C-alpha cells in the first residue's frame, strides 16, 4: 500500500462509494462493521434453524420434518453459530476497537483484513447451499453428522459433507488471516508508551485467542482434509479397513475443538472487565492476575481435549489425566470470576443495558462453568455424555457466556460506533426477555439430560414431553426477543440521541477520547501513553 496516502485526508475523502466501498475497503472500521453485520445476519439464520428443531421437539413423534433433515439442521446450526456468528462478532469488535484502544491508525495488514472478511460470505453459502440443492434433487442435503464430522458417518455421508469441509477450509483461512493481523497489530502498532502490560484487557483476550487460532485451526484444516481424501481419494486415515482409526479423528478434531471454546470466550473475557469498571466507576481489580489467568487458560486449553470423548474407550490413566487437567482449568477461571466480582465490590454501580448483560452474563456463565466441572468427572460423564445435560451446559457457556457477552459489548460500544444512543428501554426489555427465556429454555434441558434424554435425536420418550414443551416455547420467546435487538441496532444506526465522546460517565481508555462516531481515519498521529 502506498503509505504516503494514509496520513492526510479528511473524513470521507477518497474512498469509493456504494458497493465498491465495501468490496475494496481496507479501513478497519468498515471491515469491523461488515464482520458485525455478517455475524448478526448469520445469528438470525442459525437461530431460525434451531427454532425448526425446537418446533419438531415440541411434541414427541415426528411432525414437521424427516430425521435426516433434523440431523442436517443440528449440524449446520452449530457450524453457523460458532464459525459464522460468534467468531466474526469477536473479530468485528477486534477490528473496530483494537486500533482505537491501542491508539493505532488502522490494523497492521489492511488488505489481508479485507480478504479475511470476504472469505466469510462464500463459506456461509457453501454451508447452506446443499439445502437448496436438495430441493432441486441434487444431493441429499447438508452435512448430517453434527458439527463434529465424526467418521465413519462423515465418510459415508453425502455431498453436504464435502460442502461443509470446504466451508471449514475457507472459514479457517479467514480466521487465521484475522488472527495474524491482530497479533501483528498488537505487537507493532501500539501507541508509544503502551507496554504489553498496559494494553486494555480486550487486547489481551484477543492476543491469546489469536495465538490459539493460528496454532489449532490448521489442525482442524488438516483433519477435514484427511476426511476429504478418505472420502474421495482412497486414503485410510480414519478408515479401519485400511489400518486407519476413527478415534484418531476425534483426537485431531478436539485438539482444535477444545481451544475453540476459549477462542470464542477470551475476547468476551477481555471486554467484560472493561464494562464492569465503567459501570462500577472504579478501576478493574487484578489486571495482572487476569492477564496471567488468560495465559494459564490458553495453555491448559490445548492439553485437555480428550474430555470430549471420555466414553470412546480411553485407558484409565488417560481418563484420569484428562479429568484432572480439565478440572485444573477451573482454577484460573475462578481467579477471573473473583476479579470480576471484586471489580464491582463497593463500586458506584449503575445498571444500563451493557451492565445488565454483563452481570447476567457472570451468573449464567458461572452456571455453564460449574456444570462443565460435573461433565469433567469421568464417572459422571459416563451417564451424561451425549445427553441433553451436555446441550444445556454448552449453551450456558456459549449462548450466555458467548453471545450474551457479545450483546453486552454491542450495547457498550454501539454509541461510540454510530454516534447515537440506543433506546435504553428497549435494551432493558431485550435483556430481561433474553435472560428469562434463555433460562426457561435450557434449565429444563439439564433435567432432561439427567433423566436420560439423548441429544441429536428428533423423537423422544413420552416422559420427556412436558419439559420439551416448556423448552420449545421458551426458545421461541428467546428467538423473537432478538428481533428487539435487531430493531434497536438498526434504529440506533439510523439516528437517535447524540452520543457524547465519552458516552459513559465511568468510561476509561483511548477509544473514549475520540469523537462519537470516530472519524474515518483516527489516530493518524499516535497518542502517547504515560
Amino acid at each position, binding site marked *: 500500500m502506498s503509505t504516503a496516502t494514509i496520513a492526510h485526508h479528511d473524513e470521507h475523502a477518497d474512498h469509493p462509494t456504494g458497493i465498491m466501498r465495501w468490496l475494496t475497503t481496507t479501513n478497519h472500521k468498515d471491515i469491523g462493521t461488515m464482520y458485525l453485520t455478517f455475524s448478526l445476519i448469520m445469528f438470525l439464520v442459525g437461530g431460525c434453524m434451531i427454532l425448526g428443531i425446537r418446533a419438531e421437539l415440541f411434541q414427541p413423534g415426528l411432525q414437521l420434518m424427516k430425521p435426516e433433515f433434523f440431523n442436517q439442521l443440528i449440524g449446520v446450526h452449530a457450524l453457523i453459530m460458532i464459525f459464522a456468528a460468534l467468531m466474526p462478532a469477536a473479530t468485528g469488535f477486534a477490528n473496530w476497537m483494537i486500533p482505537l484502544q491501542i491508539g493505532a491508525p488502522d490494523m*497492521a495488514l489492511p488488505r489481508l483484513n479485507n480478504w479475511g472478511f470476504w472469505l466469510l460470505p462464500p463459506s456461509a453459502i457453501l454451508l447452506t447451499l446443499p439445502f437448496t440443492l436438495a430441493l432441486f434433487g441434487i444431493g441429499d442435503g447438508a452435512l448430517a453428522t453434527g458439527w463434529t464430522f465424526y467418521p465413519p458417518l462423515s465418510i459415508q455421508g453425502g455431498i453436504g459433507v464435502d460442502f461443509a469441509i470446504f466451508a471449514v477450509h475457507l472459514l479457517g483461512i479467514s480466521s487465521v488471516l484475522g488472527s495474524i493481523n491482530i497479533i*501483528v497489530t498488537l505487537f*507493532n502498532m501500539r501507541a508509544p508508551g503502551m507496554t504489553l502490560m498496559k494494553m486494555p484487557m480486550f487486547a489481551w483476550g484477543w492476543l491469546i485467542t489469536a495465538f490459539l487460532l493460528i*496454532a489449532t485451526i*490448521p489442525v482442524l484444516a488438516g483433519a477435514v482434509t484427511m476426511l476429504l481424501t478418505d472420502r474421495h481419494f482412497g486414503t485410510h486415515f480414519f478408515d*479401519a*479397513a485400511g489400518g486407519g482409526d476413527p478415534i484418531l479423528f476425534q483426537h485431531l478434531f478436539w485438539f482444535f475443538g477444545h481451544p475453540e471454546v476459549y477462542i470464542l470466550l477470551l475476547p468476551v473475557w477481555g471486554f467484560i472487565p472493561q464494562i464492569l469498571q465503567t459501570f462500577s466507576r472504579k478501576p478493574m481489580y487484578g489486571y495482572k492476575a487476569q492477564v496471567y489467568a488468560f495465559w494459564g487458560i490458553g495453555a491448559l486449553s490445548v492439553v485437555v481435549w480428550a474430555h470430549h470423548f471420555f466414553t470412546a*474407550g480411553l*485407558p484409565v490413566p488417560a481418563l484420569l489425566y484428562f479429568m484432572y487437567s480439565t478440572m485444573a482449568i477451573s482454577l484460573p477461571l475462578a481467579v477471573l470470576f473473583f476479579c470480576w466480582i471484586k471489580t464491582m465490590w463497593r463500586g458506584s454501580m449503575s445498571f444500563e443495558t451493557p451492565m445488565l448483560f454483563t452481570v447476567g452474563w457472570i451468573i449464567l456463565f458461572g452456571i455453564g462453568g460449574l456444570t462443565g466441572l460435573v461433565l469433567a468427572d469421568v464417572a459422571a460423564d459416563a451417564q451424561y455424555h451425549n445427553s441433553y445435560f451436555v446441550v444445556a451446559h454448552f449453551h450456558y457457556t456459549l449462548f450466555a457466556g458467548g453471545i450474551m457477552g457479545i450483546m453486552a459489548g454491542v450495547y457498550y460500544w454501539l454509541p461510540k460506533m454510530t454516534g447515537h444512543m440506543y433506546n435504553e428501554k428497549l435494551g432493558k426489555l431485550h435483556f430481561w426477555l433474553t435472560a428469562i427465556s434463555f433460562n426457561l429454555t435450557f434449565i429444563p434441558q439439564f433435567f432432561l439430560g439427567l433423566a436420560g434424554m439423548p441429544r441429536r435425536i428428533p423423537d423422544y420418550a413420552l416422559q420427556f414431553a412436558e419439559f420439551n414443551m416448556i423448552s420449545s416455547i421458551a426458545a421461541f420467546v428467546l428467538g423473537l426477543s432478538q428481533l428487539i435487538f435487531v430493531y434497536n441496532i438498526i434504529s440506533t444506526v439510523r439516528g437517535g440521541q447524540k452520543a457524547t465522546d465519552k458516552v459513559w460517565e465511568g468510561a476509561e481508555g483511548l477509544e473514549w477520547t475520540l469523537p462519537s462516531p470516530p472519524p474515518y481515519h483516527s489516530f493518524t498521529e499516535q497518542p502517547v501513553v504515560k
Partner: protein
Amino acid sequence: MEISAKDNDLSSQERRSLANKRLGLKMVWIVAGSLAFAFALVPLYDVLCAATGLNGKTENTATTLKNSRVDATRWVTVQFTSSVMPGLGWNFYPKQSNIRLHPGQVETVMFEAKNITSQAVTGQAIPSVTPGQAASYLKKIECFCFQKQVLKPGETKVMPLRFFISSELPEDVKEMTLSYSFFSAKE
C-alpha cells in the same frame, strides 16, 4: 522487530509497514508448523498406540510360542464378537461366543464367513480388543485376519484363529473381548 541498515532511508510509516509484513510472515510459519503437526500426529498416534496398546489394536503378525509356561492358577475369559461393515455382503460370526482358558494355553477358535452375493468379494478383518490395555497380551499364532479373504459367490469358509494369552497379562484382567469387523477390501 529490528530494522536493517538499508531500511534507514525509509519514512517511519514505510518502515512500520515493512515490519508488519515481516512479523506477519513469521506468523505464517507458525500456521505451517501446526498444519505439519496435524499430519505428523497420524504416524505419532500409530506409534503411541502400538507402543502402549491403548487403542485396542492387536499385533497383526504371527507370534511364535516362545515362553510356553501355562499359568494354571488363574482363568481368563475371552469373548468374541463380529460385525460386517456396510458395503460387504457377507454373513460372519464366531462359532463359539466365548472361551475360558489359562494364560499361556494355546487355543483355536473357528469363525465362519459366507458370501451371500453373486460375485466374488474380498474382505479384510480388523481386530480390536477391549479393554485396550489387554490388547498387547493377546498373541496370535495364526489368524484369518493376517491377510485378505476372497469368497466366491455363495461360498462358506470356516477360518481359524489360533492364539494364546501371554502369562504376563495383568492380574486384574479376567475378561476381555476380541472383536472382528469385516471390511470390504479392494484387490
